């Protein structure tokens, strides 16, 4: 057996120490990368009690602030349809069903002068036929929004607010919104209705505390 001198022993010790540190750091990174893979709880972040301190990437994204439109300040000027960097706009009409009167003569669906209440294009207030009307039972009709067609002009929102219960409201949809640093619509909004809100509470609705399924936000893009 070869006898090591003090110099060789210290040299081996230092090398071993370096290798241990590299192994620890590498192992830690691997472990961390494995943890940040996928959440196994299989529940959306907005229903998860650990979302506020969770380190999974979807939870971190979920906690970012996002742009949202405050319906209590919105004047339905139509600029949401024309000022968004996306075409069509990321602003969409959402329906708070719990507030809806399911009216036959819906102020959000029909032009004010309409006499015959049918789905003829000439009667519809929506310029893109995004608001759908379906008979439920006399004299109730259900109104749903086709978000692919909706351009966020807010005509139906204004009509519903003026003549109905105000169940149609404009909201930024975060499955579309690219969350610009300076929102182009916010810059041009005449009523200052846009503001940043926490990503885990991205909806701003007026008039009713309960949220309908259609207004749950799916994902936050950052």
């Amino acid at each position, binding site marked *: 057996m070869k006898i090591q001198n003090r110099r060789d022993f210290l040299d081996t010790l230092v090398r071993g120490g370096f290798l241990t540190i590299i192994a620890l750091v590498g192992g830690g990174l691997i472990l961390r990368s494995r943890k940040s893979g996928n959440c196994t709880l299989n529940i959306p972040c907005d229903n998860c009690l650990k979302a506020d301190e969770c380190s999974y990437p979807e939870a971190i994204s979920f906690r970012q602030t996002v742009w949202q439109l405050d319906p209590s300040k919105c004047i339905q000027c*139509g600029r949401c349809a024309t000022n968004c960097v996306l075409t069509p706009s990321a602003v969409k009409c959402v329906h708070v069903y719990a507030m809806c009167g399911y009216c036959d003569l819906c102020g959000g669906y029909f032009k004010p002068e309409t006499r015959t209440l049918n789905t003829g294009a000439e009667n519809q207030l929506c310029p893109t036929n995004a608001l759908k009307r379906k008979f439920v039972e006399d004299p109730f009709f259900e109104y749903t929004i086709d978000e692919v067609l909706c351009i966020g002009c807010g005509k139906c929102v204004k009509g519903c607010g003026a003549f109905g219960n105000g169940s149609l409201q404009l909201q930024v949809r975060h499955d579309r919104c690219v969350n610009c640093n300076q929102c182009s619509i916010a810059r041009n909004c005449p009523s200052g209705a846009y503001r940043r809100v926490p990503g885990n509470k991205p909806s701003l609705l007026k008039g009713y505390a309960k949220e309908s399924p259609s207004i749950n936000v799916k994902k936050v893009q950052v």
Partner: protein
Amino acid sequence: MKTRILIIGAVTILLVIIIFMARDLFLTRPKIESNPFEFEMDDLKKSDSSQIAYQEIKQFKPGLSEIYGIAVDPLDRVLVSGKEGVEIFTPEGIIQNRWPTEDGALTIATDQKGNIYLGMPDHIEIRDSTGRLIKTWKIPGEEPIITSIAVTDLFVFAADAGRKVVYRYDLSGTLLNRIGEKDPQNSIPGFIVPSPYFDLAPDRNGFIWIANPGRHELEKYNYEGKLLSKWGFASVTVDGFCGCCNPSHFTFLHDGSFVTSEKGIERVKVYSPQGDFKCIVAAPESFEEGTRGLDLTVDAHDRILVLDPVRKNIRIFVKKVVQKTDER
């Protein structure tokens, strides 16, 4: 000489350029572009001034933070219910009495003796004019919303916007029958009440008129609940009822004419006893945009009292005096 002309020319051109630049910078205003997607509603709220047959003569402000209902008692005193209680005013609008209630009464009515009927969230209270409780009874069913009460010599009618039905009670509070429930066999369409505005009023002929706001109609029933007639149609024009659900309130003048109020296009109008449009009492420009809940009552002199919940005051309208000119 030539150089001088060149210099003067150059300076002139420079000045012209500076003037144009200055005009662009300071004088021209940014062009306001009309938005093709804006829903313009101002035209809908314009009314023909020749159709306005009433003028506002007085306003007075109750001391309640929110006001809900108005009625006139046999002495022509004005009763106002609100969030904190009830206030009683002289016909001139001078406060006479006030007393608190546990909850805000959405509606108020009086009988011939001057007793005051209050529509509380889940019960009816009868009090004298000093606020002393005389009687109370519960409204049947879950989550009732009593939006209107009317009292005749023998009966009390209460409109429940929650259950979309009218209850008829005797004066002791015994429920006698329910009026207006959907009954296709007897051609009763049922009440459509999308928002909590559901009014009723007895006429001078012994019938009860009930608003069916979702159908934009006023329906006439006998006390047993048989539908006798109805009138009204949906329209933004002045002769119809606008929006999803109107009229929100109505009452009668002494000649049997109807006085109605609407939300959406805020206006108060008079219709003949047959339901033909007669005139405008208060045009949309008389109210703040978005005003809802314009409760109405008429006093012994046919003055129309309008409760304005946004301005939080009582507004009194009388018919304009038409001055006849002598033709020679």
